[in-house]
């Protein structure tokens, strides 16, 4: 266990402080030089040249301070490695979510990953293994870590859990990225990415007045439960101007990221654009959903079948996957929302899920 490390760190910090408390002449000279350096740095007009460390980040379990630029990042978040890669940071270890890639990195992350071969973690969080990796940052937004796990992990290295106001899996992609940007000293890069992608969403909103306030929903193929506005997939639709249902009152809204509808009466799922997410395996299950063909969404061709890649891009909602998701989904949404069965939603047609009699 690396639980000795923090004590060493505090010891080092204390000895670093000591000279400034009992100043000898030599120390005076050093202090003056340091002051001068700080002064000169302050004069430099280069953007982002101000030392971003120590970086201080507030979160639901307290505050984390990253003292120096991390070089050995362990990413516990199921989607967080995408965000690190977007910032040009290759994680030392990452947690594989799903998919056939050996590193759990989907096509949109391949270029950024390059030749790197991160350690792959699967299943439950193995704190001892993480300690052995000697990380200098543990990125754990969208990881579901508990307060107890945080207490242990933060003794190994500065650990970054979600914000207090977000659920375990509800941190908006902007916050995921900005906070990782702060922790890795790349806040400016992060801000630039956020501005660019938010701009793309804004352009799409402006170009599609018919989407504004229209109802939309993402659900897993064949199931009568859908993601709420608090989920990242709900946030994606909201960012395009759609209205997405919220969790019913009285439920724990923070971690209530999906709503369950009665299989016998899924009328609430009959929205203007209904996106069926899938691993590619549930087309048949979707096709035989008993009440599906009685819905307006089915008759009017408002259903979008999202294949494995598009579903994963939406479920990651990362700076790398959002562009792919928008490229794929926007034409499908255009064909779906018009409510005219004649404009065929191509992905739904390809999966053989279009209404009979529709062209």
């Amino acid at each position: 266990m690396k639980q000795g490390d923090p004590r060493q760190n505090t010891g080092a910090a204390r000895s670093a402080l000591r000279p400034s408390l009992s100043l000898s002449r030599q120390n005076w000279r050093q202090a003056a030089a340091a002051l001068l350096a700080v002064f000169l740095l302050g004069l430099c007009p280069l953007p982002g040249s101000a030392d971003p460390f120590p970086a201080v980040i507030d979160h639901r379990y307290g505050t984390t301070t990253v003292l120096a630029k991390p070089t050995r990042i362990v990413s516990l978040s199921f989607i967080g490695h995408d965000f690190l890669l977007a910032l040009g940071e290759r994680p030392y270890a990452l947690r594989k979510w799903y998919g056939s890639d050996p590193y759990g990195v989907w096509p949109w992350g391949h270029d950024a990953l390059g030749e790197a071969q991160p350690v792959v973690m699967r299943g439950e969080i193995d704190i001892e293994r993480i300690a052995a990796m000697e990380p200098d940052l543990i990125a754990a937004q969208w990881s579901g870590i508990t307060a107890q796990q945080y207490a242990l992990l933060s003794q190994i290295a500065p650990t970054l859990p979600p914000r207090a106001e977000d659920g375990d899996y509800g941190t908006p992609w902007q916050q995921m990225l900005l906070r990782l940007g702060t922790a890795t000293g790349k806040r400016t890069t992060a801000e630039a990415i956020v501005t660019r992608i938010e701009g793309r969403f804004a352009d799409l909103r402006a170009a599609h007045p018919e989407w504004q306030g229209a109802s939309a929903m993402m659900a897993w193929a064949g199931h009568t439960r859908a993601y709420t506005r608090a989920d990242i997939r709900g946030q994606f639709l909201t960012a395009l101007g759609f209205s997405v249902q919220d969790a019913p009152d009285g439920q724990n809204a923070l971690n209530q990221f999906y709503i369950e509808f009665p299989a016998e009466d899924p009328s609430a799922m009959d929205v203007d654009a209904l996106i069926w997410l899938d691993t590619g395996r549930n087309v048949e299950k979707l096709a035989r959903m008993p009440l599906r063909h009685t819905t307006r969404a089915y008759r009017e061709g408002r259903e979008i079948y999202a294949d494995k890649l598009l579903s994963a891009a939406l479920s990651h909602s990362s700076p790398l996957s959002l562009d792919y998701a928008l490229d794929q989904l926007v034409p499908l949404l255009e064909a779906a929302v018009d409510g005219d069965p004649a404009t065929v939603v191509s992905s739904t047609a390809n999966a053989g899920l279009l209404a009979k009699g529709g062209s």
Partner: protein
Amino acid sequence: MTASTLTLPRQSRSGDLRLLWLGTALLALCLLSIAALSLGARATGWADIWGALTSYDPNNADHIVVRNMRLPRLIGAGLAGAALGMSGALIQAMTRNPLADPGLLGINGGAALGVVLCILVLGVTDPAEFIWVALGGGLAASVLVFLLGGGSQANPLRLILAGAAVSALFLALTRALLLVSRQTLDVYRFWVLGGFDGILPATLQSLLPFLILGALLAIIAGFGLNALMLGEDTAKGLGVRTGFTRLIAGAAIVLLCGATVAMAGPIAFAGLIVPHIARWAAGPAIGWSLAFSAVFGALLLIAADLLGRLALFGGNMQAGVMTALIGGPVLIWLVRRNGVRKL
């Protein structure tokens, strides 16, 4: 499952009285079935139910709900309950152990391992595709248990030990595989609770032959088991081929229980508790206790599925969970009131 069936006198009773109670239970089954067809998240009237059964309109949402959702669930729960009840009665008689459960023969463990391998290796996520691997895994595990338990020479104790060992081994393997994949866990977690959510008529059709064959074998085994319950030597003295009887009973249990786990996942408790209630009403004779177990099992599972559907607003408590929630208190009450009937 009504209280009246439980307040019968304890001593063995005449055939007429048993027939009366069996009739009452069947009547209760009919009433419960009507309730199961008419209750649910969508309000349906008598006309809808009648229409759905007699003149089905595939575009009428109410008809679809009754015919394609509630009816398959009802039939599935009824068949599974009857099968679990009968196989429970058989295994308790065969092992002469009132705590024996059909799951003891490793069927559930084998089915679970099959399902997890199927999710993990083939990437299957649709429970409708699980039925053959679940059935195959269950059959394979039970064959292993029988071989370890001594084949046709199996004595009850050895069989139970072999079953427990194989079940534990398969469960451990299943858990080890689940640790590897979070997605597999999600699909498995749903399956392992057991239930009739989204059951398909096609599934029922393809499993029906196994259930029918299992029921026939159960009846055949019943003749020998009556004598076997008097003890190995007495049975032999009466001219019963004990090894053959055990084999037939074992095959019946495996077919009934395997088809059930393939249809609905491992449903806890029904196979353990139903025979106790049945013996209480029917006496120890295996023929009667099989018949009562079938009817009571169907009653229990249909009730469990119905209550599970109605329990959560719009949500769904799986029948496997409800069975234990209903069955647990009933068993405790029964044991405290009357003690367990000797086998």
